[in-house]
């Protein structure tokens, strides 16, 4: 098809879709009038049942925990898939890379920044079920923090800080941890991903029963998965540098 033909065809399609979607969306309640009952019921019963202040976290890690298990595995799958796709340039080919030494100021800033960012991220993970945040958000941030090692130091420093087997294993551990949690509750006599731990005091870090455990598994998985994804992409650049030199 020519470019014009393609645009014409899609114009027809998009116009039709626009009309159709508009018609469908018109059937929704007016903006700001969520009809329920799912969310309304959860907002009403969750604080009493699970003692977690963040209802979203309770939904993610308890009521709809299976979705989150699937989601963690999608992420795991993507990181595995990237390693699969970008395998040509893994590790061996990029060993000879040398960075220009960055300025001392930058390096000093980095040395300070890395722990600060990582700690903040861990805090975000830790309070995920009390305040906004949680395993996913904190995990991405923590991965980003580790990446500062590269910006402040060099490629080899990053490699030392995050050796591939360790990151791989951490990632696998996070993903498996969630599934293991399900099996443990099953063995303990509950339903899969049942919440069997004591629920603790509302609004504290010990609240929520298994929610914190699941949350930390997710945090570990997300951090490791994103570090892996970043490493895979950076390695592509490093391989180019090796070829250049």
């Amino acid at each position, binding site marked *: 098809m020519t470019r014009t033909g393609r645009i014409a065809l899609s114009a027809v399609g998009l116009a039709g879709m626009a009309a159709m979607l508009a018609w469908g969306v018109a059937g929704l309640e007016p903006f700001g009038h969520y009809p329920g009952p799912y969310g309304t019921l959860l907002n009403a019963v969750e604080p009493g049942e699970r003692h977690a202040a*963040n209802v*979203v*976290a309770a939904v993610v890690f308890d009521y709809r925990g299976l979705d989150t298990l699937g989601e963690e595995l999608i992420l795991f799958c993507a990181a595995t898939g990237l390693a699969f796709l970008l395998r040509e340039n893994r590790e061996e080919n990029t060993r000879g890379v040398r960075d220009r030494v960055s300025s001392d100021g930058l390096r000093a800033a980095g040395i300070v920044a890395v722990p600060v960012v990582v700690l903040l991220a861990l805090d*975000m993970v830790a309070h995920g079920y009390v305040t*906004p*945040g*949680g395993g*996913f*958000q904190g995990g*991405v*941030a923590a*991965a*980003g923090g580790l*990446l500062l090692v590269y910006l402040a130091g060099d490629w080899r420093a990053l490699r030392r800080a995050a050796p591939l087997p360790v990151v791989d294993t951490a990632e696998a551990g996070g993903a498996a941890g969630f599934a293991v949690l399900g099996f443990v509750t099953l063995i303990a006599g509950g339903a899969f991903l049942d919440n069997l731990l004591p629920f603790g005091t509302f609004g504290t870090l010990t609240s929520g029963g298994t929610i914190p455990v699941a949350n930390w598994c997710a945090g570990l998985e997300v951090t490791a998965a*994103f570090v892996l*994804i*970043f490493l895979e*992409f*950076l390695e*592509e*650049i490093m391989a*180019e*540098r090796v*070829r*250049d030199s």
Partner: protein
Amino acid sequence: MIGVQIAALALVGGLALAVVLVHDVLRVAMLYGVYGLVLVVLFVVFQAPDVALSQLAVSTVAFPLIVVTALAKVKRRERRNR
């Protein structure tokens, strides 16, 4: 509140169009970064701080890193081929 919501909605819509229409990849990458941040604002006014935080993490950390590295790799190859 309503005003903020409308402003955020309009910004998101406009930026999405810009991302799509601009064909220079480098500019698109930058526009896309802004687009992500405006989405964060929209999520905040929708009272969804959890989603906003994850969008923030994604659009400030994850996306820039992978898009920029992808671009850098492509540029480097193109320069060498020439």
